[in-house]
């Protein structure tokens, strides 16, 4: 359950940053991405998948959230 810092890049894409792992990647797709509901499965630029507990309403970004790593497949 890494702590993930989320921030918007200048071009509007979400950046997924895990300090302990030196991981800075863009988020390519999010399962739920609307002002009412946000989260679910996300796919990063390098193809790895993580899972955020869906939140209602969407969190204010930048923020730090817990994510679960999903097995690649």
């Amino acid at each position: 359950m890494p702590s993930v810092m989320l921030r918007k890049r200048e071009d509007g894409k979400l950046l997924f940053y895990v300090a302990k792992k030196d991981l800075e990647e863009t988020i390519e797709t999010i399962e739920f991405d609307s002002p009412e509901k946000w989260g679910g499965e996300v796919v990063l630029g390098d193809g790895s998948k993580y899972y955020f507990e869906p939140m209602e309403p969407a969190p204010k970004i930048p923020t730090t959230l817990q994510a679960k790593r999903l097995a690649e497949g």
Partner: protein
Amino acid sequence: MAAMTREETEALIQEVLEVYPEKAKKDRAKHLAINDQSLEKSNKCITSNRKSLPGVMTIRGCAYAGSKGVVWGPIKDMIHISHGPVGCGQYSRAGRRNYYVGTTGVNTFGTMNFTSDFTEKDIVFGGDKKLAKCIDEIETLFPLNKGISIQSECPIGLIGDDIEAVSKVKHKEHGKTIVPVRCEGFRGVSQSLGHHIANDAIRDWVLENRDGDDSFPTTPYDVAVIGDYNIGGDAWASRTLLEEMGLRVVAQWSGDGTIAEIEKTPKVKLNLIHCYRSMNYIARHMEEKYSIPWIEYNFFGPTKIAESLRRIAEHFDDTIKEGAERVIARYKAEYDAVIAKYKPRLEGKRVMLYIGGLRPRHVIGAYEDLGMEVVGTGYEFGHNDDYDRTIKEMGNATLLYDDVTGYEFEEFVKKVQPDLVGSGIKEKYIFQKMGVPFRQMHSWDYSGPYHGYDGFAIFARDMDMTINNPCWKSFKAPWKTEATESEPVKAVA
């Protein structure tokens, strides 16, 4: 020597790796790479921020070096106690040339060494009482200090002293900010973790001090300069440019900085990050907690300065945008003259760099402005995100080396034959004795500043006087020089 092709660089890396035992070879191979601009992510070609191999010569420092030496040390009106045995503080004292204004020993303490001087007794019985006494003595002898930070050396973590408790008690007693920093040298693989720990200590013990206090009058143009350590006056040369374009610099982190400035930083509108490696953590934190955006900038060389000034200005209204153009126009004649003078003397010269966590990529633009080419670069303690940002700056098929060992670096220089090597004091005399011109790029070789337009002029002069120094021609003993070369001497005699 012409630029190397991909195959040649690959062959060079293989040749250098040849001497290692099988296991070491496998490990080091991951840290040496050939730059490929088409890659988006560096983790496809290079591994970084890993433990150095036992037995090789690395030039990395420790977590204490990252915290006391880099982040906390330059905060001039605080006293930084090197808590532990005397050596760590004494041998790193005043070595970094972070300039500051003030009267040392009265209201500023930058070049002084404070230590709790642990002895065997303190290891056996614990050093908390000694630390408390140390803080009391500091209060008596240096009453104008604005705060104290406790920089842990290795034994503190090993014997489990409770420096946080001492800090809290003494904070109540003296009413001053007292910050315990758990930066024991054994933590992490290099000084990089020390930066992170230091950032976290600022976050936990300093940054919130003025939350809810709005007495500080703000303007829409407030910015903070973060990650500029004022080496040889760098932060001053940067600050003038920002102020000239109409911004108000509220805080300097941490070169020539004060604790009051740090406490005021959460009130600014934009954080400007120069040294990304050592200060990005706190910038990310402020973005999250105080919604302050941050951007990275680069004040080495006119091309990058102009680019950065415009990027900074984009975050503000038109007066600042005009201000940026005005600043660039004002210095144009000056830097054009510098380029006109030095470019003919430096054009085509090839440079290899090996520096800490920021300059391996930031100074490339300045060299290119002078017509020089960087053919190899590497970080002592960079992470993947640093290499991500480096790939695009470097040419194709150039060398990248992470945490390079003494042996590898020497071999690379022998084979690539650069006209200049830029690295630190530990490399300087090796390369000079090999006959390769060398500049220290950590301390600017006791020169500087190199930031800003003023700094660029000094940078160009320094590179010229190093590369074109007549001493490099006198490297061969006179009786070993060829007869043809000594002809003119005879004629004069």
